[in-house]
Structure formats: C-alpha cells, structure tokens
C-alpha cells in the first residue's frame, strides 16, 4: 500500500534514507541540504536507524570519511550543496576512480559569486566530469524515488561507481507537496543487503585502495572507469524497471512529454520541467505542436537517445540552469548539440541559460521560449547564441 502524505524534498530524501538505513553517513551542514543530515541525525537519536553518523569539520573531510567507510565495506551516504561540493573537489574524483558506490544527495545551489543560496546547477555540473553518475529530480516524489534506486545502481557488479541524487535547492527541497511513499518492507527488499565484493576489512583479501599508478597503468584504469559508466546505462534502466514493478512509477534516462509529433521542443533538467509541461499543455490547446524532454540522467549522458527523440522537431531549445563561461552556452547545450550533430539531427537549436541563482521561471516564460522556436523555424528569425531567459535589462 502506498502512503499518501505531504512533505518537502529534503524530508522525502530523509524518509528514503530511513528506509535504506545506510551503514555510515559523514556530513557537514550547508544550505539548502542541511536538513538532510539534521533529519537523519534525529532518526539515529530516536533509534529508528542504526547508521553511524560522523560529524566532520568540512566537506573535504565528509567525502574523505565517506571514501574510507565505503572502502572498508560500508554502505555510505553523504549530502551537500554548492560550496560544500566545491570544497570536496579533490576527493570527489578519488571516490569515483576508487570505484566506491557512495551515494550523495546533492541539493543544487549556485556557486559563489555573487554569494547566493538559491537553486542553480553549477555545483553538480561543475562535477560532471568527476566520474559520478548523476540523476536529477523534478520534484519531491522523484527525489525520493531516485534515492531508493541509487544504491542498486552504484553497487551493481557491472558499475561500482558513486551516484549523485540531485534536486533543486529550495524549489523542491523546501516546498511541501503531495507525495506517495512506499512501505518499509518492499523498499528494504528492493534495496537489498550490501555485500561488497572487495573491501578493506576483509582479512582474507589484503588489498590497497587508491595507490599511485604509473603511466603504464593509469590510462587503463581510467578506461575501465569509463567503461563502467557506459555499462551503468543498462543497469539504470533495469533498476528503473524493477522499481516501476514495485511502485507503479516509471523512469528512464529522460521523460518525453507530448513528444510523439512535436515540432518544437524544449529540453531541461530539474524543477522547471513541471512548469514547462504546463506551458506545453497550454500551447497544445492552441494547436501548437509543442513537446518537452526532461533529462533525468545526465551522467552517463544519454546523447544518442535524446537526439533520437528530437529527430522530428523543427526547432529545439536546450536549457541550462548553469553558465559555463565558455562563450557557447551551458553543459547540456554543448553535449546535446554535439549528440544531435553525430546523429544527423538537423533541427535548429538555441541554448538558453535560465534560472541562475534561483531566478524564477513562470509558465509564461516557457511559452515565450516556444514562441521564439516558432519564429526561428517559421520566419527564419535568428537568435544571438546564447540568450538568458528572464534577464533584466
């Protein structure tokens, strides 16, 4: 039986953590993810779970402790945002290259400056090449569902990679909304016991984690890591299928909304997706063939699959909640445009930067995006790459 209730995205994440009952959680508080370690600490104090919580003095230490715990053979969790993720930087790579199945709840917030606490993807997008799997949520429901699937993917013998479960700071982390939760028993059965294959506390198998590698070996290790990332695609879909059988909620690399015959499509990540879907519905009522693609999995990047969805479109808006200062737009724009080129998908594209530092996006803003796409395709209007949505001038 599903449990119908209302809670915030951070509460939903903590609820999933309670059901998973990980072995170890080192964490350092940072807005807007602070509530997650706070709620988990309460659950530990109340005896609801027996997770070992390690209060540390910085995020560099929280990730270092997570690496130690995971290497020892413990199912390990941490949470962070923004500058906290930036401070972890060095060891974020160590977690991935050591092939440790750590799960990190990332509550997305912009990196300074100007100093700001609101939603943006610059923190996790900055870590997009660190070797972590990245899964993004539209709302509290998805933050919960993705968290429940995370360890199944991370710990799979074909993967052995850490996973970031991302949601938008404040917009979903602090908004109370309806949610459907699963009961403890089926969740525990779904997540399963963690039985690490190789771990430091196994006295029968002496091993080293993270040793120096000379050039003769380094490149092969990196290739093996890259292969694991590619293999994770199959696992992500298998886990999603099993999750759907339990919950009735289906997930893939992305969600295609009214894309069957879409001529104009927007592609984006995270909480803006619901707003975009409302805009699509309004436009469809007016006879405009609009559609929307919500990217759920950014690492590994499902470029081929996304490009295929866009094959029939006349014009596509690729939207980044992140500025990469390349002079070319954002990371989703760069990667999807490249994937479309390889797949010979020739729709007009515009890469739009939106929502930086929590700048609000309304249904009307999304309608304007689709309006611009129509002008591009029908009237040959060109747009200076790359526009900022809702910029005050």
């Amino acid at each position, binding site marked *: 039986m599903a449990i119908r*209730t*209302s809670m915030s995205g951070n509460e939903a994440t903590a609820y999933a953590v309670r059901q998973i009952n990980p072995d170890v959680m080192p964490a350092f508080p940072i807005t*807007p993810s602070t509530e997650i370690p706070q709620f988990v600490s309460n659950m530990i104090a109340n005896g609801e779970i027996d997770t070992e919580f390690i209060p540390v003095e910085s995020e560099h230490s929280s990730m270092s402790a997570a690496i130690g715990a995971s290497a020892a053979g413990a199912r390990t969790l941490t949470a962070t945002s923004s500058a906290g993720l930036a401070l972890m930087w060095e060891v974020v790579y160590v977690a991935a290259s050591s092939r440790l199945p750590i799960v990190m709840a990332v509550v997305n917030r912009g990196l300074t400056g100007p100093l700001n*606490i*609101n939603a943006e993807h610059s923190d996790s997008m900055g870590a997009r090449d660190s070797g972590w799997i990245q899964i993004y949520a539209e*709302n509290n429901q998805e933050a919960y569902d993705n968290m429940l699937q995370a360890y199944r993917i991370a710990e799979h013998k074909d993967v052995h990679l850490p996973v970031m479960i991302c949601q*938008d700071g*404040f*917009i*979903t982390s*602090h*908004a*109370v*909304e*309806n949610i459907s939760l699963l009961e403890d028993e089926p969740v525990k059965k779904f997540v399963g016991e963690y039985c690490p294959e190789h771990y430091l506390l196994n006295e029968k198998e002496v091993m080293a984690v993270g040793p120096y590698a000379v050039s003769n070996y380094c490149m092969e290790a990196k290739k093996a890591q890259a292969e694991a990332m590619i293999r994770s695609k199959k696992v992500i879909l298998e886990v999603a299928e099993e999750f759907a059988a339990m919950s009735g909620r289906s997930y893939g690399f992305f969600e295609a909304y009214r894309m069957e015959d879409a001529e104009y499509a927007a592609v984006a990540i995270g*909480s*803006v*997706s*619901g*707003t975009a*879907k*409302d805009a699509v519905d309004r436009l469809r009522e007016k006879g405009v063939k609009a559609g929307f693609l919500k990217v759920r999995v950014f690492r590994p990047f499902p470029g081929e699959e996304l490009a295929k969805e866009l094959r029939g479109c006349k014009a596509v808006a690729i939207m980044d909640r992140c500025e990469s200062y390349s002079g070319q737009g954002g990371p989703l724009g760069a990667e999807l445009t490249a994937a479309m080129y390889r797949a010979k998908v020739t729709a007009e594209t515009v890469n739009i930067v939106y929502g930086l530092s*929590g700048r*609000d*996006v*309304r*249904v009307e803003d999304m309608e304007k995006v689709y309006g611009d796409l129509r002008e591009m395709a029908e009237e040959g209007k060109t747009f200076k790459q790359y526009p900022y949505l809702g910029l005050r001038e």
Partner: protein
Amino acid sequence: MEALTEIRWHGRGGQGAKTAALLLAEAAFNIGKHVQGFPEYGPERMGAPITAYDRISDDEIRVHSNIYEPDYVAVVDDTLLHTVDVTKGLKESGGILINTRMERKEILPLLNGYRGKIYLLNAYHVCMETMGKYFPNTPMLAAMVKISGVIGADVFLGEMEKSLAHKFAKKPEVLAGNMAALKLALTEVQ
C-alpha cells in the same frame, strides 16, 4: 471555490508566515487536496520581509514558480504596508487579509486603490486573549481559511487539533491556547 486557489503571505522573519503557509498546505492536504507550500528564500534575518506561498488545487500541481496573481494575500505585519507592494497582482475577485490594530479608514490609503475585499484582524488582541503571547501566524491562519473558503471551518479546526497535537507533542500545555486562538480569529476577522 475554484479548482486552484493561490495565496501569498507577507511577513517578517520570525513571525511564522512561512509556518502558517506550510500549516495551511498540510490542512488542505488532509482534506484530499493537492498542495504546494513554499517560502521564497533570501538572506535569513529576523525582522526582514519574507514571502511564502500556497497553491491548493483539486488537480495535480506541476508548476514550480512563485505566485504573481494570487487569489488571496495575507499581511502578517502591517508595517510592511509602507514598504512592500502587497496588493501587486492580487485578483480583485479575491481579497487581502491584514493583521492590524489600525482602523479600516487608516488602512485603505495604504492599499494602492485595491478594489477587492479587505479583511482586518487584530491578531494581537486574539493572541493576548487566548495564549498570552504574540504569535500572529496562528490567528492569521484561521482568518485566511475563513476568507478564502479553501477548507470548511469545522473541518479545519479538527485537522488543526490533530496537527498541533503532533507538533506540540513535547509541550501539550500550549495546545488549548492555540486552538482557542484559531476559534476566536474565525469570529473576529472582519
């Protein structure tokens, strides 16, 4: 009641406007509605103006933006009337609820000619009569329920008794005062 009701709360940090928005969302959820209750965050300081929002709907809510054309507005602190454009975008078919000790004729000039319904509540009086302490969000929550009609008054009181009993599980002595404040506000809002 419309299928979707949107409410905007104005208050100052520490007065509980965000809590009121979340409590209203929870109460509406409990009677089977789809809800969103969320604050608009800036620098967190006691006394600084803050905004919080509620969406209450019969249908699933997908949009994740702030509310620009609310059906109702609640102003938890009347000093905000001088600094914040509280009626901005407010639908004239809806109304504004203001916590104040001022007279109606003193308030009217501060509302930029708003032509919808204007409701006043002396939350200070309600609080002192019932709780002996000034927590304006409790009476304002009840008054908002009454003026917006998003929940029937009796159902609301029943739901609040349950959720406050849970919230104040460690200090049950405050429950009676809070319930009395809610009830008195329902009758005193004008």
